[in-house]
């Protein structure tokens, strides 16, 4: 029993390492979502108003929506190249529970495309005139929310991985699912701005994250099996 356990964790870490390695070699996977996020956020003041009062009001929402879009667009390549070169078949034929291997891929994807965006968010929050007392809540809520997005998006990507041209179908499937995260993420920031405690929202997001971590990889694994069939 212990022997199998160790190899499952070995397979988990091997997959994690491999995906990180691919991302660092390609670089685009890291840089593009990051750049996209910064550019989209910078467009809002130009489109709405340069007045800091109005920007303060929309800052949390703008940052959150831009993060959602960035993470959704970066999802596209999560299983795509693996599907095309046949690595996905090898993954499915592993004797280890697919749950952990899919989780490894999701974690690696988040580390590469989600985390950098979260880390740069205070800078953009400053540019959108968000009061500095809300930075902590913003980063914390994004830290909890972006992995949920990655995990949910992974299901949709897995379902559409076999499609030749996907176009906007990924957005149509994933974005409606992100509504609850968006609600709690922005409410957390807002409540800090109203000098209330955001702890309720943060703990709710924590619950959502733990539920997604335990269920979403199962759905992704099932979706991958369906798509590779």
């Amino acid at each position, binding site marked *: 029993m212990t022997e199998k356990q160790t190899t499952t964790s070995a397979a988990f870490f091997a997959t994690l390492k*491999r995906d990180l390695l691919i991302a660092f070699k390609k670089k685009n996977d890291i840089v593009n979502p990051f750049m996209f996020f910064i550019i989209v956020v910078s467009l809002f003041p130009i489109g709405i108003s340069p007045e800091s009062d109005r920007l303060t009001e929309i800052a949390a929402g703008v940052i959150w929506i831009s993060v959602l879009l960035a993470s959704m667009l970066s999802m596209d390549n999560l299983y795509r190249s693996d599907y095309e070169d*046949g690595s996905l078949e090898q993954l499915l*034929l*592993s*004797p280890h529970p697919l749950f952990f291997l899919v989780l490894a891929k999701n974690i690696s994807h988040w580390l590469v495309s989600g985390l950098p965006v979260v880390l740069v968010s205070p800078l953009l929050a400053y540019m959108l005139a968000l009061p500095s007392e809300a930075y902590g809540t913003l980063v914390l809520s994004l830290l909890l929310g972006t992995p949920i997005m990655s995990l949910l998006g992974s299901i949709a990507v897995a379902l559409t991985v076999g499609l030749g041209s996907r176009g906007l179908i990924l957005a149509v499937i994933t974005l409606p699912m992100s509504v609850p995260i968006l609600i709690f993420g922005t409410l957390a920031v807002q409540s800090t701005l109203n000098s209330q405690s955001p702890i309720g929202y943060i703990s709710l997001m924590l619950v959502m994250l733990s539920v997604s971590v335990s269920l979403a990889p199962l759905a992704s694994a099932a979706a991958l099996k369906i798509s590779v069939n």
Partner: protein
Amino acid sequence: MSSAAPTTSPNSDTDKIMLAARELFCARDERVLFKNLNFDLPQGQVLQVQGSNGSGKTTLMRILCGLNDSYEGSIKWYGQEIEDQAASFFSSLLYIGHRVGVSKVLTPVENLRWSCSLKQAVSDEQIMDALKEVGLRGFEESPCYTLSAGQQQRVSLARLIISPASLWVLDEPFTTLDTKGVAMLEKIMQRQAQAGGAVMVTTHHSLSIAELTILSLG
């Protein structure tokens, strides 16, 4: 369209049957690929699957691996259902399909480190030795997009050498290989059969392997 007769070798009295397929039926989009397909794959045998284009060779291979579940009939692994012993089946199985499972961004060593560790622990020496054996010495650290299709195929074949898997399922492994490569793969397959393993392979080559039996699809 037509059914294939069972093609077990006549002297399979003491051989253990590894994989047994009974009454396999598969239809894709209302077209029957095969029906009443029966065969046994004992230890120590190379089973070559032949058939014209579109006769369902690739589908059959994927069904046997569990990649495709749209079929009827039974497939048994040492006399038991595969679902009941999935872990043991998948650790004994090695599949190489049309898409060879080699990431173009990574080097051969990095590729093998991952794909082998999905099944069992592997050391870098093993990987280096295997790459040498498949004729990729000197390419260990070059990214795979600089390699030719045949060389990428060889990267995936290196897994055959490293892996202790007893059942190999190879779908058209010869297509991109040169004559030397073909001879090498035949040698490896023969070695596998002699060591008590089994190979299922689709190809149009006529193989020069003693342990060969042939299964014809449509």
